[in-house]
């Protein structure tokens, strides 16, 4: 098992997966990444990331839902595990903490 830290891209993928709920399979994830984060990825690259997240224990998956467009092949639906949710929360808290520590005048200075 590799380290359990979360990369920036991995975080995006995890968040997208949660957002998509039952729809979370590779093509939808890819689409959302493109439309929301403007990230171009190939399925191969994305697949590698998803597998990595699965290996780290943040995702679990199962094969289901064969459709006609898929020529009768099932797809792999991903679901975020408790560990995944924890790591996302941790990451969010870290960011919120950092945001809160920024002095008000500094925020005004950069006009946020």
């Amino acid at each position: 098992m590799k380290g359990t830290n979360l990369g920036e891209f991995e975080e995006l993928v995890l968040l997208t997966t949660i957002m998509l709920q039952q729809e979370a399979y590779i093509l939808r994830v890819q689409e959302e990444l493109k439309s929301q984060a403007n990230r171009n990825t190939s399925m191969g690259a994305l697949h590698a990331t998803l597998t990595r997240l699965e290996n780290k224990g943040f995702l679990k998956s199962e094969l289901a839902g064969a459709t006609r467009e898929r020529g009768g092949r099932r797809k792999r639906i991903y679901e975020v595990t408790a560990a995944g949710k924890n790591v996302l929360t941790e990451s969010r808290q870290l960011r919120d903490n950092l945001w809160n520590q920024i002095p008000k005048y500094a925020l005004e200075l950069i006009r946020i």
Partner: protein
Amino acid sequence: MEPDPQIRFRVDQNLGMPHKPDISLRIIRALCKPELVEEIEGNLLERKDMLGYSSYAGLFKYWFEVLNYLRPSMLRSFRKSKNQGSMFIFNPRLALRNLLKHKSTTFISLSGFVIGLLSVIFLYFYIENEMNYDAFQADKDIIYRAKRLSTINGEAYGVGVTSGPYAPALLNDYPSTITSACRAYPQNGLVEVGTKQFYEEKMLFADTNFFEFFSYPLAIGDPQSVIDDVNTVVISKEIAKKYFGDLNPIGEIIEVDHEYKFTITGLLDDLPNKSQLDFDMVFNIELFNRYDWFHGWWYNGLITYVKIQTAQEAEGLNEQLPQFMDKYMGEDFERNGSKIGLAMEPYTAVYFNNKTRFDRVNHGSKTNITILGLVALAILFIACFNYINLSIAQSYKRAKEVGVKKVLGANRSRLILQFIGESLLIMIFSVTFAIALAELLLPKFNNFFGLEVIFTWSNPVVIYFFVGLILTILITSGLYPALLLSSFKPVSVLKGGKVSLGSNLIVRKGLVIAQFSISIFLIIATILISEQINFMKTKNLGYNKESVLIIENNNLEIRDKKEAFKEALRNHPNIIHVGSASGAPGGYHDGTSIQISGQPESIKIRTVFADPEYLKIFDIPVVAGRGFSSDLSTEIDYAMMVNEKVLKDLGLKPEDVIGKKTKIPSWEMERTIVGVFKNYHFLNLKNKIEPLGIMMGDFHRRYLVKINGHNISQTLADIEEIFAEFSPNNPISYRFQDDMLAQHYLDEEKQVRVFMMFSVVSIFLACLGIFGLASYSAQQRQKELGIRKVLGATMAQIMTLISKEFMILVGVASIISIPLSWLFVSGWLTDFAYRIDLTDNWSTFIFGGLIAFAISFITISLKTYKAALSNPTESIRYE
């Protein structure tokens, strides 16, 4: 085992049949992990559905996705069986053991490959050297040589030499086409530096732009100006070493022919390749400006090169050249009654155009190169066939090994890899040996064939060629045995049953036949080519060439005392005749037209200027009229004789010409024909006898001395002494007439040597192969032979039993190669005007077959004799 991919999908029938896999899906299926295939395929299909099927952009995006799936995390492992230890990977140590176990076959295949590769290495570099003549010339594609076109009595030929005025006139008349011109005039002369004095044969007089026009490299000197002064010279490194040792030659002075002094201003660098112009000293041609001959259109001794930018322009120019010739030589043409043409010959074509006459550049022969290339290929074939044959023959020994390995889980591709690996090992050994041997034997090889081959391993083309060659050999000779061996079924070989080699028998027999066909072909060709050379050397040439010494009349001292020198020689007891002439038979014979009075047409003849002794020295019989009288005062500038061929071509009888005045317009001479002499071969036997005239005249370049057979070395020493008396400052240069004639056939002699060498090599290799096969056969039939012996077979019977099958093959090979060699040799002979008749030499063809037959029989007997001797109790004891 993984489930079959075809049944891996649980396909919901309501959703339709699985997509018919196209190429992209098949790639995924073949390369990706099986557990991922379904998902990936689904994703890809869905993506394709989204992208649409028609647009190129969609297709491109789709393929981008497909290829992006091919990453390490997706790819399957290609290790098929879990039960494959190091035993089945190519294992050099195992291969080495296998090779050592079968020492004799290993030796045979190894030596076969070494000899084959050795031949290929030599011949490759020889051919490469030949093909790369002048390759270093930067402008080789735009340089042309002016070639004169002439006909002698209907037969057209080209002449490589031109005269001084061509170059300036061409530059003047076609300024837009011809951008520059350069003349080169090969000469020889006596070079003197201090006390060192040598006769140099490779001098070149050239225009001052020589080093700009061509790309001959200079070690010292500026190409633009190095020979700008008339009395300057550029010398090669060898010449510098010869005269000055390790001292710097620049600025030193050399003296030529006791007449001219030259200052050395430059040093030639070594040439990257060889060149058609062969020289080691370059002088300024303007030295000759003061002489009339240099400005005459008819003194043809130098070579004119021009630069023309495109091939089309050169062709266009060739069409205009008849007018050019008419403009400058029209009057002469009218006077002579015949014309001469001119053509621009591409520089790169000059080297291989060895049909040009009177050419003063080096030539090579494309035919020779092709023949040698084919011979090298044939030798290599024989070596490969040996290897294939022996591997097949050996396969029964290794059948068990294959069976056991298969049982233990080796698959076929692994076994193929293993056997090819063994072949590779043999190849690596052979290549190493062959290269080492080639380096070692190169000087001997060059010496034996009279060549100057250089190895240039560093050239990338060479490396590509040899790597490619080795791979080809590996595939052609390693693949078939590997496929065969790996195809054995474990059940049948392990059961102890016989390995069936039935279908290979045809292959093996075919290979043996091919080997022996090549060998017999080479044997026959060798014999017939040497027959032809022998024929040319011994054929009655119509004159007596024995014991005639040719002394060069090459310096002023001896020229001035010509008659006195001849007289001094005549007083020697062992000298029979002394004469002088413009040339000797076999040498250069200048051509001209003559007009016999009373005849409507002029005729082109070759000429010799001689003194009255000429006919006596060579024993040339006079058939009509009289020979030359020795009274020079009346004879010189008066008499001439012609050969029978002149009469035949004009359709005349001797009495029609004898006493007739004859004009020679191009030289402004008039002679009277006093007699007719018998035809003799005054050129060499490659050429037909042409019309010839011998004239009394004074342009003698050589002394001809007929000596008798008593104490030749003393006579030669005396002649040298007499020469030194008359010419104390110049060394003598002489050779024998028959030696000079032999020079004409050097090329053919080289060919014979090459053929001889390679026919020996090929028959040796073929015999090695057949020896290996015979030993295999004897071993295979050991039991049968034992039983036969017990039942009373004699030794002779047993020996014939095994020999028979091979002898039949050799017989078939002779039947194949006899007509082929007949075709080849008769083609080769067409180059010779006088040649042996193949039907007279029919026995050679039989003989070639018989030699192969005898040699192979002896080889096989070595093995069969042993087999026949072996004690039956040994061979049938077991089982």
